[in-house]
């Protein structure tokens, strides 16, 4: 590690001391705050890992499709496999807080929209958070755009209601949801209750006839069949189409040595991304530990959701109709971003508790008491500490062009997240690692979307350069 300035060190220590004080003071005030502090410290660790490993899906796919460099995609895949090992252990011990999501084509479409958006924005949901911690103004704009778009998208009806198939409306209304919800009004409500909830919820273990918590289910079904085999296939495709050809162009490299040469090349590709893989391993262990700690705290306090904790802390504002708030028990990014804007919009007079997303499931608690918001803020803090300690922290003001792309890309990611019930973390990384087939469907869409996004950006850049050259000729 190179020499770090005293100023950077002071700032880094200041940030970690701030979070320490928040934890200590709130815990001294009321024991229940430890539940929020658990989210905080795991968020902090995620931030440190993300920044260290440059864990950004947008950069990974842009490097692959635009310049043929597979290093980061490989690192992310290795990280996913390592996380899956930890998840299998957590699932087999029966302490996992993970729940599979409905599996159908909607995940592919959602991933496609999200993938295009993340390439436009120059950062995925997790990448934008850690880059914000590095002082990147564009990434901050992306987060704002994702947050605002989601908060509005989940509540809008009006002309969008005309795009809802009649079967969705009929199915949504037949669910017998509480009267306080305006299920027949709002595209997302009818999409969720009328379509998504009707889709099968499964896992690779269940598809093979095992229980998730059984040894065979967790390790063979969810880990080997659900993660290791598909990840190996994907890595082989990346090797054949990208790494192999670039290796052939290297001095002394080549593909004429038969299968032995290919195995050597494949291994070389795997070990070329140690930093991202190491970050992935720590992320995986941290995700598993978070599930363990959150479940332990739930048993200790006798609760199944943080809504009950908030109520005991004397804050029942913004709880959903079922008394719940968003409390996944593991790493998540986008839902809490929607919540804080949802809370703000409600303060400004927008009635947004009559939709399923806020009113029935996640609530809109005060951001100061929202466990998942503590996680995201600490994630930014953890990334800032790592950036300061590696001399990579720098305030970067966005240019007009990048700001425009950030807003458009962020909006697409916001829509994609809500369609897919998660982003590249909650919709792909966590789901795939826990043996949920919906995660791979989202991933397939996301890869397709990233490919289209790179092609569109290339076209736009070339067109812009042509125009500039014409002006120079004149």
């Amino acid at each position, binding site marked *: *590690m190179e020499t*770090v300035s005293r100023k950077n*060190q*002071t700032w*880094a*220590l200041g940030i*970690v*001391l701030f979070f*320490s004080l928040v*934890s200590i003071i709130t815990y001294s005030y009321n024991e229940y705050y*430890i539940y929020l*502090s*658990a989210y905080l*410290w795991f968020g*902090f*660790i995620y931030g*440190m890992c993300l920044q260290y490993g440059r864990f950004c899906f947008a950069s990974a796919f842009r490097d692959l499709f635009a310049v043929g460099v597979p290093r980061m995609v490989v690192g992310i895949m290795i990280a996913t496999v390592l996380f899956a090992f930890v998840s299998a252990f957590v699932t087999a*011990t*029966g*302490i996992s807080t993970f729940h599979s999501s409905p599996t159908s084509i909607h995940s592919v479409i959602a991933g496609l929209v999200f993938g295009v958006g993340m390439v436009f924005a120059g950062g995925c949901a997790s990448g934008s958070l850690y880059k914000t911690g590095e002082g990147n103004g564009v990434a901050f704009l992306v987060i704002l755009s994702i947050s605002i778009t989601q908060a509005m998208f989940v509540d809008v009806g009006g002309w969008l209601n005309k795009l809802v198939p009649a079967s969705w409306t009929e199915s949504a209304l037949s669910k017998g949801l*509480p*009267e*306080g919800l305006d299920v027949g009004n709002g595209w997302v409500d009818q999409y969720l209750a009328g379509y998504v909830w009707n889709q099968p919820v499964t896992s690779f273990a269940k598809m093979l006839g095992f229980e998730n918590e059984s040894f065979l289910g967790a390790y063979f079904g969810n880990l080997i069949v659900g993660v290791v085999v598909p990840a190996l296939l994907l890595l082989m495709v990346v090797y054949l189409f990208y790494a192999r050809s670039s290796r052939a162009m290297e001095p002394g490299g080549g593909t004429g040595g038969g299968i032995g040469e290919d195995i050597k090349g494949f291994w070389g590709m795997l070990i070329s991304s140690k930093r991202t893989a190491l970050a992935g391993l720590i992320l995986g262990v941290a995700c598993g*530990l978070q599930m*363990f*700690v959150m*479940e*332990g*705290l*739930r*048993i*200790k306090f*006798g*609760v*199944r959701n943080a809504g009950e904790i908030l109520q005991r802390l004397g804050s*029942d504002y913004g*709880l*959903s*109709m*079922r*008394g*719940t708030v968003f409390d996944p028990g593991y790493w998540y990014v986008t839902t809490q971003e929607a919540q804080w804007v949802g809370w703000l919009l409600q303060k400004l007079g927008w*009635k947004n*508790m009559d939709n399923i997303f806020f*009113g029935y499931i996640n609530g809109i608690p005060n951001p100061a008491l929202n466990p998942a918001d503590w996680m995201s803020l600490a994630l930014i803090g953890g990334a800032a*500490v790592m950036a300061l*300690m590696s001399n990579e922290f720098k305030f970067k003001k966005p240019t007009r062009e990048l700001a425009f792309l950030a807003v458009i890309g962020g909006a697409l990611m916001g829509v994609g997240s809500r369609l897919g019930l998660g982003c590249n973390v909650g919709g792909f990384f966590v789901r795939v690692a826990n043996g949920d087939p919906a995660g791979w469907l989202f991933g397939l869409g996301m890869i397709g979307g990233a490919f289209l996004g790179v092609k569109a950006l290339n076209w736009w850049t070339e067109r812009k350069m042509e125009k500039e050259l014409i002006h120079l000729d004149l």
Partner: protein
Amino acid sequence: MPKSFAAVLLIVAIFLGYLIGYSIPPFLHAGVFSSREEKGVAVEIDEDMEKYYEQLYQQDEDE
């Protein structure tokens, strides 16, 4: 490794260790790591509580 970075890691490790230590006894108490068949404690929101939250929401609407 600068001493300040080591200090950061130490602080994170202390909080993480405390959280893990805090969560283990409930698991032991609930028999999660024992041979007991029924693991953990089942907590469900009962109907009265659900009604309470619905009414709470409607009161907010009326206001």
